């Protein structure tokens, strides 16, 4: 298990990388849109994180990151189940190893179901159509 400190460090580095427009050489000239927030408030980002240019930059960037993460859920779940399959294959008939593989697959499916119901639950909790 990684410590919390390590995770915080990685997350901070990630955000610095995302939101520092200068200091990183441009990987490509053809970026579609690398600003967040609407016209009068826009903040430029180092790479295109998928902002739609609405409202204030922080909310725009958060929604962009939520969108990014939710695009990847299917891929991550499929990857995790494949890893579970590899674990199952390599269990050599050992019941404990098999149980670990089944546990991984079950947790993955539970995570998928939680993700699917996350939007309805949040939509129910947060007022005034904020998630539109």
């Amino acid at each position, binding site marked *: 298990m990684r410590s919390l400190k390590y995770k915080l460090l990685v997350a901070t580095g990630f955000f610095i990388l995302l939101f520092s427009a200068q200091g990183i050489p441009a990987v490509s000239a053809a970026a*579609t849109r690398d600003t967040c927030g609407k016209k009068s408030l826009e903040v430029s980002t180092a790479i295109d994180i998928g902002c739609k240019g609405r409202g204030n930059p922080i909310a725009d960037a958060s929604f*962009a990151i939520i969108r*990014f993460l939710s695009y990847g859920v299917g*891929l991550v779940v499929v990857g995790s189940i494949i890893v*579970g399959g*590899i674990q*199952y294959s390599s269990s050599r008939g050992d019941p404990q190893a098999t149980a670990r593989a089944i546990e991984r697959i079950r947790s993955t499916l539970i995570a998928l179901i939680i993700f699917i119901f996350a939007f309805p639950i949040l939509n129910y909790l947060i007022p005034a159509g904020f998630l539109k």
Partner: protein
Amino acid sequence: MISVNLLINFAAGCPGGGLLGFPTWYKYLPPMYVDGICSPQLNSLSAVWLIAAAIIEILLRVAALVAVAFVIYGGFQLITSQGDPNKTAQARSTIINALVGLAVAILSGVIIGFIAGRIS
């Protein structure tokens, strides 16, 4: 799902050599040619998922290889069991588990499509 759309948009990446039949990690990244040299484009955050898709393909190949290796290992166990019922049972469960694991890995996409399609 959405990830499938991403794959269709950028189906053609840079040409590149695979290794032992494994696809390259930059397979789905959109190509950009500078002076005739192809370099995969990494200018948006969603490129991460294109790389993840290629890694999943690599993982599928790994799963197939692992399953084949353990079926061979189980066969070897069966050969060397000398008729001992405990050892044959062990060998049989090795082979069956290898095949079940392969089936889970291959069907994973279908399983996810089924669950997500039923609920949402």
